[in-house]
């Protein structure tokens, strides 16, 4: 799981163009000013590309924070 967070952190930095950004399981869109519904699509697309996975729309809607994302990614990597 640590690897997932490390990779996620890199993705967040690239998507939000902020090399100092640090995310943790509790990070939400309220913590990152640039994280809105438009940039969320970029974020999801980037995660899919970098992890080689695909999300279903319903899954994406259920993500409340970075922890939810990481768990979903982890489950997809496993299978």
């Amino acid at each position, binding site marked *: 799981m640590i690897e997932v967070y490390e990779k996620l952190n890199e993705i967040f930095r690239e998507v939000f*163009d902020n090399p100092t950004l640090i995310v943790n399981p509790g990070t939400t869109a309220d913590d990152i000013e*640039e994280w809105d519904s*438009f*940039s969320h699509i970029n974020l999801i*697309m980037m995660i899919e*590309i970098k992890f080689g996975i695909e999300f279903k729309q319903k899954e994406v809607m259920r993500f409340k924070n970075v922890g939810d994302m990481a768990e979903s990614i982890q489950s997809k990597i496993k299978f």
Partner: protein
Amino acid sequence: MLNDYAKIFTQAENYNIAYLCSGYQCDLGFGSRVAFRWVFPDRSLLNITFAELEEDSNRCANMLLDLNVIKGDPVFTFLPKQPSLYSFFLGILKINAIACVLFSNFGEEALMDRLGDSKAKILLTNKGFLRKVKSIWDSLPELEKIIVVDIEEQESERVLSYQKLLGSSSLNLTIPPTVPDTPSVIHYTSGSTGKPKGVLHVHRSIISQVKTFREILSVEDGDIFWCTADPGWVTGVSYGIIAPLSQGITQIQYSGTFNAEIWFEILQNEKVNIWYTAPTALRMLMQEDTSLFAKFDLSPLKFIFSVGEPLNPSVIDWARSILHKDVYDTWFQTETGAIMIANRPGMEVRPGSMGKPYEITAIILDEQNLPVPPRQQGRLCLEPGWPSMFICYLNKESVYRQKFASGYYETGDLAYKDENGYFWFFGRGDDVINTSGHLVGPFEIESALLELDEVAEAGVIGAPDELMYEKVVAYISLKQDISWTRSLEIKLRLHVSNKLSSIATPQEFVIVERIPKNKSGKILRRLLKAWYTGEDVGDVSTLESE
């Protein structure tokens, strides 16, 4: 006690918007009244009274005077929604400097265009955004100092701590005489071509803002008002700062992102009476399960108003059925400064209509600048002279003059009027894209896309979208030997998002061999739109030959 809004406009030197928003409220005895009730994302609350707002904004004004800001100097904020932004905004106006609030999602290029065009002198920002601003600072010679809200000590002679400056600034301030023509606020807006235009308003604009606040939005003394717009846009300033504060009305500010449940909690818990929001937000609410709404008691809510994009009749039907309320659509633009055409309580709502003009002559003109009969579509124009009319586009005098070439103000919108005086929006007369209520210029996006090595040509249009009204669609042709991949798509998306803003990010890319242009090389966006929607492409005789 009634706050007689007409009285404040009788004293010629009393037009200072910031004085009317804070000091005047204290003079009326409303100092202890809550001006802002902040709801933070963690649901914590903060009340700011008019007296506190007066003190903080006086300190901000003195802070700016100490930094040698003088009348007419442009002073900007680039911050997420937070209390200090609002005090600082009023502080700017109190010394007759000019305030501009930048949308906090802007990228470097969007920032540079605006700060550079206006010759901004001072910028208020935060630590998180400082890196972005510093990366373009060398290209902004007029930007003397940056004030940072969340550093405790001065970083250098030019990067200063807001808290430190505030602590050493005096509470006492004499507001200079402010005649109605004194420049007050700049808002930037996008056009079909060129860079964004700086729309300059004057302190007189408060007349229209207050009158429409009372008579269209129907806010009465004692009401709780919530305007959900960001102060980076005209609605968030005219109706999220100026109108409610200058009327002594308590307003809600929420600094979190959209969340249906939280929004309804706010409406319920804060007993909101008048709610001013946007069609995209309402359409997002419509996607929620109706059981969500049943658990909230919105009985204090009297009226819902909407602005930013055309309001679909289905939204009105939804609100009637689920919230048991009408939604009143209102129409205005950055240039108009205040509501010009609206539906309002007491008037029959015709779903899909913009409503009727308020204290303005609105007219539909044809290509010969002649008024057209009812139900015939034409250019929506306004008779100039309303109090909140913009006075210029910064550094673009000829563009400003063109806007009034017919003798009327050209809104750029196409519409028609029915036999009963209701106006009906048809579409834009130019290529400007209205996505979720934000106007985006295709030229800026095309320019950003062309900066990437892989892109040979780009043409950007707004395409119909059920949620956002219009979405940004980019037609691109790729350079030789370049293939379209998801990795390239995300590269393009991030480039636009980080250069301009996330709002400008194309939601769809269409790869073509060539971008259609006319013989003089102008991109035929009309043709791209027709391709996208499958409509008749019309006359293509001017199309550039192969």
